């Protein structure tokens, strides 16, 4: 009744309704995709993880059985968790290295942009191909790494890097770092360029030595960029499926198994969707917890504003 007093156009023709309809239509495709491939999977994972279910059997409530199996009976889970944490532990070294390169490239050095491009180029490449390249570099006969080590007289017999229980994980980590380091460098470079130069000038006038300037000015102002790098490092540690799949397939044994390859194998190798879903829930919670920790370490909501700027 209100409608009639306000105007004579019916509700479906009014501008306000049309605007809302327009907004809804425009948001619909993206929202549908995110609902189907982000939100629904998250909820479905949670539901599946409390069930016994396979495509041919009706679901049965399982309580915490799947989780009990993960934590008490699944050695591969613990092994892949340790491996992921080893990946995480390597991230600070990679980030420090990237920071070093970024500092070198950030100056008015001639050809800095060429160096930058070369360091960055490995990042946007297909990880499957990168895995194949590195597998070849590590090869016992055709690989350049063994050849270099033998020519230098450091080893007498070739090292089977990817087949050895001791070397496989570090070898894969090196390949991963090689691919991602350029990206860390670019992020840190963006951070460095946003440090106001007058801070350094003022410090120089006050006679502050260069190393102290780095420690007191550069590092604190880079905090959000460093946090962003840490988050990417953590994410990669849990999710670099492609490299592992191609280089070692998780082997030898489970020496290079990550949670994501373990999930893939249980889900699609053994068709245990319910158990794989429970593993995914654990993985997701671990990721959130680690990201939160990194955020705390960086001091508050660092990184949030850094993502949109370039």
């Amino acid at each position, binding site marked *: 009744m209100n409608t009639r007093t306000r105007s004579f156009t019916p509700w479906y023709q009014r501008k306000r309704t049309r605007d809302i309809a327009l907004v809804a239509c425009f948001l619909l495709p993206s*929202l549908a995709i995110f609902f189907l491939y982000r*939100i629904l999977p*998250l909820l479905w994972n949670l539901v*599946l993880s409390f069930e016994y279910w396979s495509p041919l059997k009706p679901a049965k409530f399982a309580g915490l059985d799947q989780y009990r199996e993960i934590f008490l009976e699944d050695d591969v889970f613990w092994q892949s968790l340790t491996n992921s944490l080893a990946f995480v532990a390597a991230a600070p070294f990679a980030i420090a290295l990237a920071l070093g390169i970024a500092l070198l490239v950030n100056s008015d050095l001639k050809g800095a942009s060429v160096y930058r491009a070369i360091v960055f180029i490995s990042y946007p490449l297909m990880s499957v191909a990168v895995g*194949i390249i590195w597998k070849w570099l590590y090869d016992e006969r055709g690989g350049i790494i063994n050849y270099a080590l033998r020519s230098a007289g450091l080893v007498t017999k070739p090292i089977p890097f990817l087949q050895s229980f001791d070397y496989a994980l570090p070898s894969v980590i090196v390949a991963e770092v090689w691919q991602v380091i350029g990206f860390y460098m670019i992020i840190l470079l963006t951070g460095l360029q946003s440090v106001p130069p007058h801070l350094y000038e003022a410090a120089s006038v006050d006679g502050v030595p260069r190393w102290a300037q780095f420690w007191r000015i550069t590092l604190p102002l880079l905090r959000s960029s460093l946090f962003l790098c840490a988050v990417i490092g953590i994410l990669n540690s849990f999710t670099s499926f492609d490299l592992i799949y191609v280089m070692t397939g998780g082997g030898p044994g489970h020496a290079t198994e990550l949670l994501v390859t373990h*999930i893939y194998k249980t889900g699609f190798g053994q068709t245990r969707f319910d158990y794989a879903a429970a593993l995914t829930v654990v993985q997701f919670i671990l990721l959130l917890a680690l990201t939160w920790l990194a955020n705390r370490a960086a001091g508050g909501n660092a990184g949030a504003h850094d*993502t949109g700027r370039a």
Partner: protein
Amino acid sequence: MRTKPLSIVLRHGALVIVCFIMLVPFYWVIKTSITNENIYAYPPRLLPEAPHLFNYVDVWYFIPFARYLLNSVIVSAIAVAGNVVFNAMAAYALTKHFVGKQSVMLLFLSCMLVPFQATIIPAYLITAKLGLLNTYLGLALPLMSTIVCIFIYKAAFEAVPQSLIDAARVDGLKERQVILRILMPLSKPAVATNVILAFIWSWNAFLWPLIITREPIMQTLPLGLARFLSYLEDTTGALYAFAVMVLAPSIFVFLMAQKEFIRGLTSGATKG
């Protein structure tokens, strides 16, 4: 200049070493791909002897390379088109004021926290329910809209002066025309970023195609590469020729549009 020449030399030295490490893998794989004889001969030669391109020809005979390439191109094209159109629509909607805008934004931001790898099991089941296993649409669908790219568009649209849009309305342009004739042409860098990111993500995607394509005829290049590796590992340099051919488009795109590329990837950082 304040900086001493010695320190400049040292800096160049350090960077040359870093670049050397970054480039050696490329050199080694290219060298292997044009090496004639047994690639497992020891000691390996540092320079290829009598380089030739037979391996590049072999690739076409060993595997259905053309088919993989076609599949990859189609999937990437769908993903790029989806990102350019859907993201622009969503971003335009987000520049308007409406009830529930805050919740939509919050929803988008929380979706960013969900890595794709944490969705594979249900995503597979959902795609199976939709009947999209082994189809191009199924391969491209999860990649057809990305939150980061929506925000890139949104920032670009918001930078367009409101007076321009109002003037266009006065001239009788409809919403669709406002987007197509005013906003998009003024947001070319955002469009470029969308195209580049969508291309790279779909071109490189491996885990998703691995899960949902069981038929070799629907597989994309990364899957072909992985299959090749497992079947023909010990025989030939063609595998490395294949790898070089697959990497070439990304390197080409990178060299052509370095600036957009780096900007896009830094703003798309959290997509992972």
